[in-house]
């Protein structure tokens, strides 16, 4: 018995909808079992993603924070070549150290690992957020003074 034989057995299993095969020929043993009892076809069944998919339509009244978060997810896929700087905490996003000062950074600006790119204020504490990557800022995803949640994308950076 060799790989070719086994291939044939597998083919036979698929064609005849066999769930399990155990064969011992001489000292050769083969035990094959298909993934799921029901022989579920490849592709995710509708049931698995549909509830989550449907709900947004029913709750159009999502707030800024939540909507931004939701929107950032598909965007993430489309812009996979960019590095994302995410918020490490829940809080309020500020682009500059104080209302009258210049912003920490801007679209087109160079940043390095230790560049402070913004502040996230949580419980009266001003937390300086560092880029932790190097490259050029391509997008600022949150407006000044807007609430952000954990993991929310703040900036997108073109790697150096």
């Amino acid at each position, binding site marked *: 018995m060799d790989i070719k034989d086994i291939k044939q057995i597998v083919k036979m299993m698929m064609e005849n909808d066999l769930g399990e095969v155990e064969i011992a020929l001489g000292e050769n043993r083969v035990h094959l079992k298909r993934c799921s009892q029901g022989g579920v076809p490849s592709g995710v069944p509708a049931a698995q993603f549909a*509830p989550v998919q449907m709900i947004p339509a029913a709750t159009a009244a999502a707030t800024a924070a939540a909507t931004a978060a939701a929107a950032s997810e598909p965007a993430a896929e489309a812009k996979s070549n960019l590095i994302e700087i995410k918020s490490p905490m829940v809080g309020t996003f500020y682009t500059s150290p104080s209302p009258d000062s210049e912003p920490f950074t801007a679209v087109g600006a160079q940043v390095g690992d230790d560049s402070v790119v913004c502040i996230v204020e949580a419980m009266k504490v001003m937390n300086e957020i560092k880029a932790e990557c190097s490259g050029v800022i391509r997008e600022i995803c949150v407006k000044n003074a807007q609430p952000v949640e954990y993991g929310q994308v703040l900036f997108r950076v073109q790697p150096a």
Partner: protein
Amino acid sequence: MFSRIMVANRGEIALRIIRACKEMGIETVAVFSEADRGASYLHLADDRICIGPGPSSESYLNIPRIIAAAEIADVQAIHPGYGFLAENAHFAEVCRDCKIEFIGPSVESMRALGDKITAKRLAKKAQVPTTPDSDGAVETVDDAVTIANKIGYPVAIKAAAGGGGRGIRFAHNEVSLRGMFKQAQTEAEIAFGDGRLYMEKCIENFRHIEVQVLGDQHGNVVHLFERECSVQRRRQKVIEESPSPGLSPELRSRICDSAVRLAKEVGYYSAGTVEFMLDQDGQFYFLEVNTRIQVEHPVTEEVVGQDLLKWQLRVAAGEHLDIKQEDIVARGHAIECRINAEDPEHNFRPSPGAIDVFVPAGGPGVRWDSHIYQGYAIPPTYDSLIGKLIVHRPTRGEAIATARRALGEFILHPTKTTIPLCKEILAHQKFLKGEWNTTYIEREMLGDKAR
């Protein structure tokens, strides 16, 4: 009344709070960890905020993150649910300092009742029967032996900061007492950050009876009768019911009155539970107070026809408890079965992951409190409770029949659950007769396969 609150919990209790708020016209903001992202119940809240990664210490147990979320979400109050921060007096205090109402009792009653030594002293003061004990912390092993000789073996050694069945050891003689004392101290220090131990006479094979109380901020307290929660596995409740089949009307009235006396003694408000041990001679003893809404609260809701979550919200907003004790009438019999994602065939190990097929039970007498649905993935990170089946029927016999019928309707695949265990208990002669105590699952049912 509040117009916007935060739900600082997850899963079925988060959904329960959202439901109560929706019915009262209160907006809700749910917090969630990355492990719960996408769960359906989050979309029933008006808003939802991710506060951190999966591990509780970085999300549902993380006070700064929850308070920061409450601030950006601009809520008036926080409901902590059960577990996580629900009985954390420090959290309640931070809320108060931040001018956010904590939906629960006062910080002071949480502190007093959270410490098992103080709680027991308060119980004695309120003339609630208590077991003979060390009357305070036990410092040394020799003190422990002296006290044990006085109150008699077996004795229970408990961490002052423990609770909910955690931090307890039993000694049947001096040798075992001496053997475990030091270790218990160290463990309590590690587990609760408080090494104080106290000792009390151990009541063996007791029934677990608890009384639901409800108070307002104006000194009114009522009870909503008792629940019997003697069906436990490793001190975790599996099936709860109300009324208890083990109480005479006279005993019921004494035990319920005791609970109200204790609640009044500490100026308790919000929903709370006074737990008792009922021994085989019909004597009851104070066990502890849970200063939160409990998992099994629906059993009481069904029997008395009151919504405990709504009462918590009203009381926290300063409203008066406008029901009198005599208006609270129990009707029929309610039973709750906890459905945990655990595999009874493999020592109840957790069974997380995607639920490919799910059809819940329904029909007359059936309430289903759960956040799961077909396609939901149970995160491996948290408690294994995935739903509560509650039945309410005119008599205990009918309630048992309905519970069995409903358990038989669930279709759940491939998740393993405690449904078969619940079915087995509901068919057990001892349960049918109403004779059950907290040791029976291990002793009578599981045998060798899963101790």
